[in-house]
């Protein structure tokens, strides 16, 4: 495996028979773009590029001269949390050929009511929910114009959500995409959870906080030829047989083989760790990528998380450093801020991008752009 961090060649698109997995992370949010050959692209979640303020995937496609309106076949939204969905409605608008994939829970009456309670005439910007309101409007436009599909594919445990023909490693190949979650019980729990979020008459309006822990995010398994990729989203594990990662590792799934590339779930936190994922679902020393997270005093990955991950694979990467900077302002303002609060930091840092390309199974190239780095380097923070 070769690792490049000189930032060159960003603008070169993948070869038609080359697999690519690109993980974008500005320190708050993440997005994954996958190329499975012959200009077939799949995007999982969305985040905003800190410099251009546009969806990171679209910024990238512009750089590599890929037309997202024809190249992107599916847009997968793994769950509705703020940090995974910013800019998603814009992606849906631009990627006209893409089919939406989401949990069936996100099309329930309960979730729709939450969207319209919190997202309309609430006098609040609740970005995750507002984004979904815009997703519904974009689907409506698709129906009205007849351009693009407006019925989602519903991701549920062990369901194939896409199949196609491609060419990788110089040969024709078939590819399949599976959703490994959520389980039936997780879907039901989500829908009930949405009902709990619905405000009652007389409740004061407020911003909608994310539900934690995340038991119902969509985990994606991509397989092309004999090569597999596992995208872990934000799925957490809390020892419940019917949920989290336990139900995935115990499932009699039609997927076969082990993944060589792993998008580590939930920013590397121990709450998303399951030993059998590493033992049963991943090759030895997989290429593992995670995005950091900073919110409400929580910094992920922790030092223990990094030690655990780097002991499981030599090839661990992070899209950027954990945001620690503060914005520089004039002296009087800074002095007043310091007197007023205990600590103030930016939520997102410089954007980073980890790009993994395979032209042959023995020719893996990892390129680090922006603030992306090896996880071992982050260990010293």
């Amino acid at each position, binding site marked *: 495996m070769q690792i490049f961090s000189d930032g060159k060649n960003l603008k070169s698109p993948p070869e038609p028979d080359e697999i690519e997995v690109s993980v974008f992370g500005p320190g*708050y949010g993440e997005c994954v773009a996958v190329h499975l050959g012959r200009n077939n692209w799949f995007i999982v979640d969305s985040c905003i590029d*800190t410099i251009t303020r546009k969806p990171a995937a679209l910024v990238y496609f512009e750089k590599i001269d890929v037309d997202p309106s024809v190249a992107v076949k599916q847009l997968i939204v793994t769950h509705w949390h703020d940090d995974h969905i910013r800019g998603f409605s814009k992606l849906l608008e631009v990627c006209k050929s893409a089919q939406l994939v989401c949990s*069936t829970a996100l*099309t329930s*009456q309960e979730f*729709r009511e939450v969207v*319209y*309670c919190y997202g*309309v*005439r*609430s*006098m*609040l*910007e609740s970005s995750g929910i507002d984004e979904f309101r815009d997703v*519904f409007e974009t689907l*409506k436009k698709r*129906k009205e114009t007849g351009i693009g599909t*407006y*019925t989602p594919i*519903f991701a*549920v*445990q*062990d*369901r*194939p959500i896409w199949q196609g023909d491609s060419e990788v490693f110089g040969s024709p190949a078939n590819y399949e995409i599976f959703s490994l979650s959520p389980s039936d019980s997780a*879907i*039901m729990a989500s*829908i009930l959870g949405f009902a709990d979020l619905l*405000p*009652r*008459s*007389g*409740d*004061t*309006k*407020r*911003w*909608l*906080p994310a539900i934690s822990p995340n038991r119902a995010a969509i985990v994606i398994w991509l397989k092309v030829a004999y090569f597999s990729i596992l995208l872990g989203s934000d799925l957490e594990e809390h020892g419940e047989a019917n949920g989290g990662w336990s139900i995935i590792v115990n499932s009699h799934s039609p997927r076969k083989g082990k993944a060589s590339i792993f998008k580590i779930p939930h920013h590397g936190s121990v709450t998303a760790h399951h030993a059998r994922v590493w033992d049963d679902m991943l090759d030895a020393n997989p290429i593992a990528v995670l995005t950091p997270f*900073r*919110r*409400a*005093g929580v910094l992920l990955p922790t030092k223990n998380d990094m030690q655990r991950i780097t002991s499981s694979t030599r090839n661990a990467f992070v899209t950027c450093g954990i945001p620690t900077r*503060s*914005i520089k302002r004039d002296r*009087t*303002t800074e*002095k*007043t*801020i310091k*007197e*007023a*609060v*205990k*600590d*103030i*930091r*930016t*939520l*997102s840092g410089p954007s980073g991008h980890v790009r993994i390309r395979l032209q042959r199974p023995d020719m893996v190239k990892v390129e680090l752009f922006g603030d992306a780095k090896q996880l071992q380097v982050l260990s010293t923070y």
Partner: protein
Amino acid sequence: MVSELAIDLTMDSSRFAEQPGTDQELLAKFKDMQEAQIKSYLTAPDSETPIFSGGQDTTETAPFKKPGTPPMVRGPAVKLRDKFISFHKWEGIVMKILGDSFYAKLTSLFSDDPDEEAEFSLEDIPADDRPLLQVGSVFYWNVGYHDSSIGQRSRSSIIRFRRLPVWTRRDIEDARRRAAEIADLLGWEEPEIPSRT
């Protein structure tokens, strides 16, 4: 340019100008008002030329005085008040509440700076706003100079929680209706648990 005297921003009070009756009757009628104020409605139109005027009223929703219009309410002499001059302001969302502090996500209202996060002391919340504190509550945070009514200047910050109206039954019914409408429009049925294939 020609130097101008300060002119208070006022509003149209044509309704008062239409009131019939003698001065004494009107004084008795508006007994809640100070005599000086009422007299201001009864006297001849203010001879002070307003700054902003025009033949056609194009300033309906700009609170300027129209020519010949008495001032709406001329209260007592201007009282010196405390004043706050912002250097910077943010909208904050409460993300987590701890024992004596809370974390908030901050969006700058002055610039396009990226979002920030800060830890605030609970003691900094004004007592009247404490009941509004919960995860998801929104507030404004300003840092700047506080100028007291006696001219003392100090650096300061103020937190003010947004006082938003409550969700009404109508809001919730509206949301329910829109939720059903979008599903109808898109031809979605209520989800069953789909079978694995």
